[in-house]
Every structure is written in structure tokens, then in C-alpha cells.
């Protein structure tokens, strides 16, 4: 038997081979089990027969390099690999359940469902980008879902790892990818920009809500390049009930220049989870494509053709464009703490032009009774807090796109802040230390709990005079 095929019941390095589950252009997938592993396993065998695409070999090599270096819930766990010197295979955790591919049968899908999918996939992309990898083949069939809900990205055969040699790039002059989902810069052969994955996700969201692919499914190089100068129909043309904010987000993902897309997948996920914070631009209300004069200019005028500069490496993005959350206790009457907090936040934002700020305030709920959302004077507490938060942030002079405001209703303020940070991939929490020590003693210190438990950096801000007063008390 050829070393490159398998049969059910065969054994390979201790793996008992089961059913063949998939045969793709570059590889075949088999179910497998191994006495040392208590989870289901998938064995991938590259297609290397005569006449097969030579990219199959290189993409298998890439995946063999990249997969063992990835971890976390958003990728399948690496189990083992065999190289070309013996018998090439890749064994990994098998994620049960279907990919997003079957959903394609039912498009267009409900808006809320598509938004939820988008946010989950963006989380997975963020996790991947932080591990220095750009996927470069994000599409429904490469996205699985864990029983616990996390999106799982599979197939790293076309991926780029910023810290490893890019074998695909050296080997092939033609771009590799999946035609409808390929970002313009990827079409032009640039493989190192994480924002290429945001373009692909934008394409997926567009397709899921409209049943149309923004740039069709071209089969030629010139057809692929069309996306560099021809803008897609706005989603609203096909889906009247597409909200302005969602069209804004999708068209931003589909921008030709990566710099005009969301700087990170985390920021895209943030937008998808907080529609109210999305700043609407001309994109939001577009009802038709750009006119021909603009299009022709983009296509033929050298000054209007897109240029793709060197992109920062995958993991550098998070550092350049972090999500900073500031927890503001607007009920705190000590203005010194407020201004110290604002100063600290201002300094952080000044050094990071891509950063965005989430201003958080926790509206404490009663443990026992259900709180009335109206206070004595009849004003809505929640709204009032929002107004106060905005007032606090006003001196920072931030443009709308860089700041969002959130009033979290919770029994435990620290837990609410921590949950927000975890859910939204916040990179840095800035929080003030409570001034009056008596109150701190009774309620516990929110800042110390946040600092101890946070998944990211935490800056605790105090104003000097406050400390002196507090300690004297």
C-alpha cells in the first residue's frame, strides 16, 4: 500500500485509524484513537500523489510547524506528527460537530445569529493573532464550534507564523487562499497582515446576512484583483433590515486598505458585542456601490491605487491597539482621584494611537430585593450613570470611535469588571483605589480584587493626598 493512504482499522504510530471523514484538495482526514489520549483524534494525511498540487506538501509542512506551537480553546490540540522522511501525518484533537459550512444552506440567517457567530470567530482570531499566526483561510468550513461554545479555527496549511520561515511565500508566486474570502493584500501576495483575517470574517458575515458574496467567487487572477478597486454592494441592498451599525462593521472589515479595518480582532469583537458604541460613518447608510468615476479612478489612477506597506507582525498589533478599560466610580466624591485616573488614562492613550477606551461603571444591585431602576427623583439610574461617565471622560477629548461607555449592573463590582475584561479581551484595566478607608474596610477593596484576578495588566491609581487622608482615618 502507498505510504500516503490509510485504511480503516490500520495502525499508524499507535493510532488506530477509523473512518475517513473528509477528502479535500490537499489532504484527507481520518478519525482515530490512541490508548494514551482520552479524547477523539483526527489524523490528517497530505495528498502527495503524482499530479497533485505541490502546494499540498508545503502547506502540510506549514501546518506541521504551526499547529504544535498553538494552544488554547480556539484551536484543535496538537497530538503528534510524522514527517516526510517516514510517513507524513498530523494527529490532532477532533472537535465534534459540524463546521459553519452547513449554515450556508440556510443563508440568509437572522441578524442576531450572524452577529453572535461573528463575535465568537473574532475571539478565536484574536487568540490566534496573539500567538503570532495569521490564518489566511478563514471560511465557514474552517470554523468549528466546541460544545462549550468557543469557535475553533482549523487548517493552518495556508497560515503565516511571524516567527517561523514562511515556506508558502517562498515557494509560490501565486496567492493561495479561498477566492471569495481572500483579502486584497493577500491577493497581492502579502501574507503577514492579521487584518487579512478580518477581511475574510467580514466576507463571511456579509454572505451570512445577504446570501451574496461581496466579491463573488472569481476563478482568475484578474477576477481576484477586482476587489482592489471595485467596492461591494452595501449589505442593505440585499438585506433591508441590516442595521446601520452592522453594515458599518462589515464594510469596515471589507476595506481594501488594512489600515482602515479594525486594528485588531478584539476590537471587532468588541463592536459586535456593543453595537451602541459603534461610530457610524458614511459606510453605515450607503445604499449603493461607489459611482463609476470613483471606481475608474481607483482602478487606473496611480495615486488612487491601494498600496500595501509592511505590516506590523501579528502579535505586535495587540500591543499597538489595545483595549483599555477604565473603571470609574462616579459616586466617588473625591475629585482628586477622578483627575488622577483621567491623567493616567490620558497618558496611556497618548502613546497608543490604535488603543480604544472602555469606560466602565458598576451600578450595584441589591443582594436581596430586585432594585427599582428608577430612583426617588424618577430618573433612570442607569442613564444617569452613563451621563456621569461621559462627563468624566469629556476632558480626555477622545473622538467617538475611540471610547465607549458601559454601565454594568451587578451585585459584585469587582466581578463585573473582571467579567467585562475577560469577555472583551481587555488588555489593560485602570482603576482608582477607593479613598475612604472606612468604606473600603466595610466593602472590601474592589481594586485589589481586580488586580489579583484580572487576565491582563492592571494599573491602580491613587492620588497622594487621598492616601494620606485615608491612612490618617
Amino acid at each position: 500500500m502507498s505510504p500516503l493512504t490509510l485504511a480503516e482499522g490500520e495502525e499508524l504510530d499507535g493510532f488506530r485509524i477509523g473512518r475517513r471523514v473528509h477528502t479535500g484538495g490537499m489532504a484527507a482526514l481520518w478519525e482515530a484513537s490512541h490508548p494514551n489520549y482520552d479524547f477523539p483524534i483526527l489524523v490528517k494525511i497530505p495528498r502527495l500523489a503524482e499530479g497533485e498540487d505541490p502546494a499540498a506538501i508545503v502547506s502540510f509542512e506549514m501546518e506541521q510547524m504551526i499547529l504544535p506551537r498553538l494552544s488554547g480553546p480556539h484551536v484543535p490540540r496538537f497530538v503528534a506528527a510524522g514527517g516526510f522522511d517516514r510517513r507524513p501525518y498530523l494527529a490532532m484533537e477532533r472537535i465534534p460537530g459540524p463546521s459553519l459550512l452547513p449554515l450556508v444552506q440556510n443563508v440568509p440567517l437572522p441578524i442576531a445569529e450572524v452577529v453572535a457567530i461573528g463575535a465568537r470567530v473574532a475571539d478565536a482570531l484574536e487568540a490566534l493573532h496573539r500567538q503570532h499566526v495569521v490564518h489566511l483561510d478563514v471560511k465557514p468550513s474552517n470554523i468549528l464550534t466546541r460544545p462549550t461554545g468557543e469557535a475553533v479555527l482549523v487548517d493552518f496549511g495556508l497560515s503565516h507564523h511571524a516567527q517561523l520561515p514562511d515556506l508558502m511565500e517562498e515557494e509560490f508566486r501565486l496567492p493561495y487562499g479561498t477566492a471569495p474570502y481572500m483579502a486584497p493584500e493577500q491577493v497581492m501576495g502579502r501574507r503577514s497582515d492579521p487584518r487579512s483575517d478580518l477581511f475574510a470574517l467580514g466576507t463571511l458575515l456579509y454572505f451570512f446576512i445577504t446570501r451574496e458574496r461581496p466579491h463573488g467567487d472569481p476563478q482568475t487572477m484578474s477576477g481576484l484583483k477586482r476587489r482592489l478597486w471595485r467596492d461591494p454592494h452595501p449589505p442593505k441592498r440585499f438585506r433591508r433590515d441590516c442595521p446601520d451599525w452592522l453594515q458599518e462593521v462589515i464594510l469596515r472589515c471589507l476595506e481594501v486598505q488594512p489600515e482602515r479595518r479594525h486594528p485588531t480582532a478584539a476590537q471587532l469583537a468588541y463592536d459586535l458585542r456593543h453595537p451602541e458604541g459603534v461610530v457610524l460613518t458614511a459606510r453605515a447608510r450607503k445604499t449603493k456601490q461607489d459611482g463609476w468615476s470613483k471606481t475608474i479612478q481607483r482602478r487606473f489612477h496611480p495615486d488612487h491605487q491601494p498600496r500595501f506597506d509592511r505590516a506590523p507582525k501579528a502579535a505586535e498589533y495587540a500591543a499597538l491597539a489595545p483595549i483599555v478599560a477604565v473603571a470609574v466610580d462616579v459616586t466617588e466624591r473625591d475629585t482628586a482621584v477622578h483627575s488622577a485616573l483621567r491623567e493616567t488614562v490620558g497618558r496611556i492613550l497618548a502613546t497608543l494611537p490604535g488603543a480604544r477606551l472602555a469606560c466602565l461603571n458598576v451600578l450595584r444591585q441589591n443582594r436581596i430585593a430586585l432594585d427599582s431602576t428608577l430612583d426617588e427623583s424618577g430618573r433612570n439610574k442607569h442613564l444617569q450613570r452613563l451621563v456621569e461617565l461621559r462627563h468624566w471622560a469629556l476632558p480626555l477629548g477622545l473622538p467617538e470611535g475611540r471610547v465607549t461607555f458601559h454601565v454594568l449592573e451587578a451585585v459584585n463590582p469587582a466581578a463585573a469588571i473582571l467579567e467585562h475584561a475577560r469577555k472583551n479581551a481587555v488588555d489593560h484595566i485602570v482603576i482608582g483605589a477607593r479613598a475612604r478607608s472606612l468604606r473600603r474596610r466595610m466593602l472590601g477593596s474592589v481594586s485589589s480584587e481586580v488586580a489579583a484576578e484580572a487576565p491582563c495588566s492592571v494599573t491602580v491609581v491613587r492620588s497622594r493626598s487621598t492616601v494620606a487622608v485615608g491612612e490618617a482615618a
Partner: protein
Amino acid sequence: MRIAIFSDIHANREAFEACLEDSARRGAERIVLLGDLVGYGADPAWVVWRAMELASQGAIVIKGNHDEAAVTNRGGMNPDAAAAVEWTRHALDAEAKAFLKALPLEVEEEDRLFVHADPADPAKWNYILDAEDARRGLDGTHARVVLCGHVHVPALYGLTAAAKLVSFRPVAEVPIPLLRPRRWLAVLGAVGQPRDGDPAAAYSMLDEAANEITLLRVPYDAVTTAEKVRAAGLPPSLATRLLRGR
């Protein structure tokens, strides 16, 4: 087996000691010195003595152009290097010179070739500076993995059966798989005189079982080393470049 490979030590005792210590901590089981033990630095006698000691414990030691120059009359060096060679000659005793003179130009072990400069013709001391040099170098040998130095700037080149070549600048601490059946040529960074802008000493760890190579950087007391270079009366530029890594 983990093989720690040190190239271009250049009589820099502080850097060499720091790297040896680091490699021991990381579980190195074998040591290879890839040439240019001496030249430029102020501690040639100590470095050669240490190399002899390591060789007696089984280390592979390769000859570099500076090692050759210290024991034979040979031109073709820039003025600073030539001045350092002259100084080095006086600093070495007969035993050290005999050791340097007897060093091999290359050693092949399993599928690996250790050599100081261009593997295609080691005695010519040509530099591997780009993909074309690397291709020629790999064409001139049959080893699957070639490890050389001489350039003082780390780089990695891979060659497929289809003669396509990848070039890559390795990132410190990130293991790079030397995939089979590709052939690879690794240019190691310098222990004793880095020139890639990072003054930290560079060496590499080859993990035989995992088939991976990792570039490692070790900060060392370069101020002391530079001080010694100056005190020895060597050209001052040889001292300052250690602090800048250029």
C-alpha cells in the same frame, strides 16, 4: 541530544562564559565551537585554554580564519583585524598555537556539517551573506543541515528538492523546525562580537530529537570586556562595537 553551538567567540571571555553557563542551564549535552576562538578580544589565551579543556571532554572545535591567522602568516584582513591578529600572536603560547593550528576546517557528524565559513570551500573563508550564497554553499556539500558562522549576524536558509530557497531571520528563543527532507543552512550569530544591533552574545541550540534549532541571546558584562580591549591597547573601535552590537 541537545547540542550547543558557539561561533565567533573572538577572545571574549565574559561572553563565552555567560553562554556556556546558559547552555548548561538549558541542558546542553554536547558542545561545538564553530571557529574564530581568537581575534578582536583581549582574552585569547583563556579562551583557547577553555576550548582545549572542552575538546578534551568531547567538544568539537572548528578552525576559523582568525585562528588560522594567529598561527600562520596570512594577509587579506582589515587594519583593525590585522592589528588584533598581531596582538593575539604575542598573547598565545606555543601550546595554544599548536592547538589552533591542528583544528579541522570542518566536521561532519550524521546529517550535520559544522564549518566556520562557506561550506563549499571552507579554506577560502567566503561569507554566506544571502540566499544565493546559501544555495551555493548547500550545493557544495551533501549534509542535510549545515551550521556555520563567520558573518556575526544570524540567518537561516532552507532548500527544497525543487531548489526553492527560503531565507529567514530567526527570532531569539523561538525553536525553528528543520523540516525534512528540506536541507538547511544556519548562519549562527556571534558569541564574542555580535553585529546585528543586539549587543547580547548569541549562540544556538540544536535539538536533535525535536529536529529544531533555537537562537539564544545572553546579555553579558560587555562593559568589562570593552574595558579590557582598551587596556590591552587594541584598536578602540573593537571595544565600542561590543557595546553597540554593530
